[in-house]
């Protein structure tokens, strides 16, 4: 089966992916990590706001809203 990797920002609402990489500085990665957004975790796109607005994502029992710039730095394997 062929696996597709994509930046989280390109996922549609309702899509899920396994996080394979988070770009960006250590501070940024840590902020995501402590909320449960880490490599290996499954992330789901809960909503996307129009006009280049933010994404709301869920990981485990946590949900958070992140800007598109941040979502761009999270690389997932689409599942």
């Amino acid at each position, binding site marked *: 089966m062929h696996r597709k990797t994509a930046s989280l920002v390109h996922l549609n609402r309702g899509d899920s992916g396994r996080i394979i990489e988070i770009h960006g500085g250590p501070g940024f990665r840590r902020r995501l990590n402590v*909320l449960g957004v*880490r490599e290996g975790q499954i992330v789901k796109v809960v*909503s996307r706001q129009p006009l280049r607005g*933010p994404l709301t994502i869920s990981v485990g029992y946590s949900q958070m809203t992140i800007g598109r710039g941040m979502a761009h730095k999270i690389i997932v394997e689409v599942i």
Partner: protein
Amino acid sequence: MIKKIVLMGNPNVGKSVVFSRLTGAKVISSNYPGTTIDYSKGKMILDGKQVEIIDAPGTYSLEPSNKAEEVAVKMLEDADVIIDVIDSTNLERNLYLTLELLERNIPIIIVLNLWDETKHLGIEIDKDELERILNVPVVTTVALTGEGIKELVSKIKKAKTSEKIKPTIDEGRWIEIGSIIKKVEKIGHRHHTLRDRINDLTIKPLTGIPIAIIVIFFSFWIVRLIGEFLSVNVIGQIFEIVYKPLIMDFGEWLGDGIAYQILISQDFGVVEFTESLGMLTTGLFVPLAMVLPYIIAFYFMLSILEDSGYLPRLATLVDNIFHKIGMHGYGIIPLFLGLGCNVPGCLATRTLETRKQRFIAATLLAIAIPCMAQMAMIFGILGPYGIYYILLVFLSLIIIYITVGLILNRIIKGPSPEIFLEIPPYRRPSFNVIIKKTWMRIKWFLKEAIPFLFVGVLIINILYTVGFLQWLGNALAPIMEGLFGLPGGASIAMVTGFLRKDLAVGMLIPLNMAPLQLVIAATMLTVYFPCVAAFAVLVKELGIKDMIKSASIMISTALIVGVILRFVLLGV
């Protein structure tokens, strides 16, 4: 000897509910020295001795990523015992902070809060096993109902340091958490609950935006209801019935003269609380009877929206617009509050992270957001001519808000970070916490803002007594006529507007203006400057230097807007 207990935990785990259960009624909220971060402290009795207990700001880890988290970490320094509050429904994530805390070698007791919710969610946690692995006491609580709080109190003395948890780096911690979770937690099938559905509906743009509009209007309606009731029927009555006779007697004893003019009224023997301009009349009445009631109502509503978990969703929905004008979604909060009274609006700019964001939020608030009292007057004077004219005012204000925002976003330097916030599950707010929170915010307002209001009225009063305001009004009359196509008399209203915007709007009535002229005047009154109360708070929040910048933006905007409106609406 336990002297100081610090409550630590992630945000949104019900920490302040636990705190309010542990402490009595006497809770102090203060600013952490050198910051704008509020925290609460209280007292509890432990073995007959008084112990201080501190509610630290919520933090996800001990390597702080913002000011509030820095404060939380600093508070650990002199803690004798840590109570680590964990959201049981989100154990894995919460354990990260727990492990970091355990590495600090401070006696600790762990609270698995929101314990009742684990059952609904099909989560099973082996509490005893967790206690054994972490090697410190663990208690389960439902702080909202008080379940488990007694056990927590009785076990505080048993708080201890862990011998089993050794310091490590974050990779190591995650591995450790993984192995702990495997041993203590079983997750069954999770049903899609009503709460999940409400969450989906309120965060998807298609349904979320209409719901947001309803929530905002409803909140407003409640605030106005409570505020008006307190203002007219409670505090206003106290002033009229109890205070007025006293001040009249005092006035007679004082006799006519400069002291009477400054303290009581410009007209001897006449006391009109909204117009007398005396320190002891208008100076007390405006802040206590006209501003405070709305502040109470607002803080009450805000606390409910905050504790139910709605605000992060609202911030998410409006983030795209606010990001383009230099803020992010949380910029809706100062705006929202400012529509009631600009003073709490200005205070709320603190929720934004950077100087640029706060500056833009405060400036836009002062320029384009009319307060409740002012809106009521605008409805009053334009209503008879039709809703069209009222809409014209608000449309102008919206255009001004966005246009000035877009420009400021370009010219103000500094970072404007993207939105990044947790969306906590919806929860029923604790009435106790709401009341305490509201009360603490009101106390803060009384202590910090009232003196400013008082001094503001004093200055206006002196300027009026020496005739400066009248002189300024006359001097500005040619600008009104020449630039904005308004009668010269409107300038006195503008100057008065600095003291009370609603009074100023009322002063436009006898000028016999055409409806479109009224639209210009009403818009200008909102735009040109904030009222003295908001101005005083802005000076405090922004600092003198930024305030001068902000004020010049306000005045230039007013000039430009006035001229544009004149050409567009009057065509001359």
